[in-house]
């Protein structure tokens, strides 16, 4: 299945009945899939909104009513949705937002890139908040992460971003869609369903009382701390005997894996840490690893964004190397192999002195 169809089917299997969106390349096949499939789902609604801003607010509305709903877009469209995402964070509403990233500021290129790391992991909109960010690296993980996104969103009442790019969205790979096994989730005792027979409920992100607002903001912070403690996900690859560790996510991590396999054939001891949650960032494993591996090689399809989280995690220890390809260029594993091996030998020489 293609990446886009996979996200769509996984969402529907996770109980998503409502999709709101506005077209933008390279994710258009996803709304196309939802338009067709949701018409077969009883009560399903596909709605092409008049704008991204309308779409995100429809998502907010569906969430207020207690439904599992989703929107998707690509970088410039996601920028337009940030106001709504911020409101949903403030109002503690679950939502799943898929971003198939483009390359560069402004309209950017439609080719695969990882240019929205900052935007996704730092909240993105205004206000003191975070969004959970999931970064799959294969079509199978697109399915798994989409399903997980719905559960995390409901569990913590917070917007969750699934961060992909044009490679993952356009590519076809064999995939198994996770079946509908429901995790035990907290009851939705906040949704607006008409107050007949119960006290009324209010969902808002604003209060005139600064003390009350501060309490609300601290409540959000406590929630984020809980997410940081419980929901970190990463994959480690060949770390045991490594002398250099690559840190990469998504498509870049796939390419890095290919490069590492080549390096290993020549006995260069390189491993990898692949963050699967970009927020919460897998800080602990990096701190554990720097105790025995000195050199960290960050590879991104951007000019360098995740490198800042790696640097923060290292707290001045170890040494960071970087290679980035912004703007939609997909580097080949052999290219990365050459660059990593240069850095590897340079570090080795330094250590030898």
């Amino acid at each position: 299945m293609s990446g886009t169809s996979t996200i769509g089917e996984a969402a529907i299997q996770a109980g998503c009945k409502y999709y709101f969106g506005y077209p933008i390349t390279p994710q258009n096949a996803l709304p196309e899939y939802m338009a067709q499939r949701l018409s077969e789902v009883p009560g399903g609604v596909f709605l092409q909104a008049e704008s991204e801003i309308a779409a995100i607010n429809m998502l907010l509305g569906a969430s207020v009513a207690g439904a599992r709903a989703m929107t998707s877009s690509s970088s410039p469209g996601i920028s337009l949705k940030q106001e709504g995402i911020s409101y949903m964070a403030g109002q503690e509403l679950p939502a799943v937002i898929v971003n198939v990233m483009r390359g560069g500021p402004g309209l950017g290129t439609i080719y695969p890139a990882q240019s929205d790391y900052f935007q996704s992991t730092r909240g993105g909109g205004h206000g003191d908040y975070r969004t959970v960010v999931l970064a799959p690296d294969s079509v199978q993980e697109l399915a798994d992460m989409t399903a997980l996104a719905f559960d995390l969103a409901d569990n913590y009442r917070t917007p969750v971003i699934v961060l992909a790019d044009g490679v993952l969205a356009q590519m076809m790979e064999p995939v198994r869609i996770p079946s509908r096994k429901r995790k035990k989730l907290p009851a939705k005792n906040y949704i607006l369903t008409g107050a007949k027979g119960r006290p009324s409920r209010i969902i808002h992100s604003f209060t005139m009382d600064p003390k009350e607002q501060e309490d609300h903001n601290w409540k959000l912070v406590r929630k984020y701390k809980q997410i940081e403690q419980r929901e970190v996900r990463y994959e480690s690859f060949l770390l045991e005997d490594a002398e250099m560790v690559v840190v990469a996510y998504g498509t870049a991590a796939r390419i890095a894996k290919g490069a590492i396999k080549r390096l290993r054939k020549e006995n260069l001891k390189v491993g990898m840490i692949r963050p699967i949650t970009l927020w919460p960032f897998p800080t602990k494993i990096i701190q554990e690893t720097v105790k025995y591996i000195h050199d960290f090689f960050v590879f991104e399809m951007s000019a360098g964004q995740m490198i800042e989280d790696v640097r923060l995690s290292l707290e001045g220890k170890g040494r960071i190397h970087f290679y980035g390809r912004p703007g939609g260029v997909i580097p080949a594993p052999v290219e990365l192999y050459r660059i990593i091996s240069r850095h590897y030998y340079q570090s080795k020489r330094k250590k030898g002195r």
Partner: protein
Amino acid sequence: MLIKTVFSGFGGQGVLSMGHTLASAAMLEGKYVTYFPSYGAEVRGGTANCTVSISDEEIASPVASQPDFVVSMNQPSFLRFQSLVQSGGLILVNSSMVNITSVRGDIEVVEIPTSELAEKLGNLKVANMIILGVFIKVSNITPFTLLLKNLPAILGEKRSRLLKINKEALELGFNYLQG
């Protein structure tokens, strides 16, 4: 073993279908496989290509910087991709539409008058399946029987009436080089 193939031509020539048909068969064989399309905004007439990677282990990049095989359906794609093929690789050319000049010496070129063959079958549109048949024969990349068996699933119910001619086209291609 990792084998990367690029299928290329005009949009509308069935270039992406060729890749999809191959990728699905390889999946059924139990291989790791990726299919990555690239095409212009036009429904017909733009450039289109797709890369199919087939491997016994996880595939790093779905893109090919140096494909092992190239199937080229038109002139621009022939010029573009013949320079990328790995040394010792093979390029399969639709000689009905491609003027084969200035070919590299270190790659093998197989010419198939695909359009003429397709016209003999009575439908120019199955040119892609003819060349795919030849490709399976020369590359030996996946079992031909598996590919045939999977054809109904590829075409789907809507196009089931086209099953017969597509099958004929594949078989014609597969047996072409013997005769």
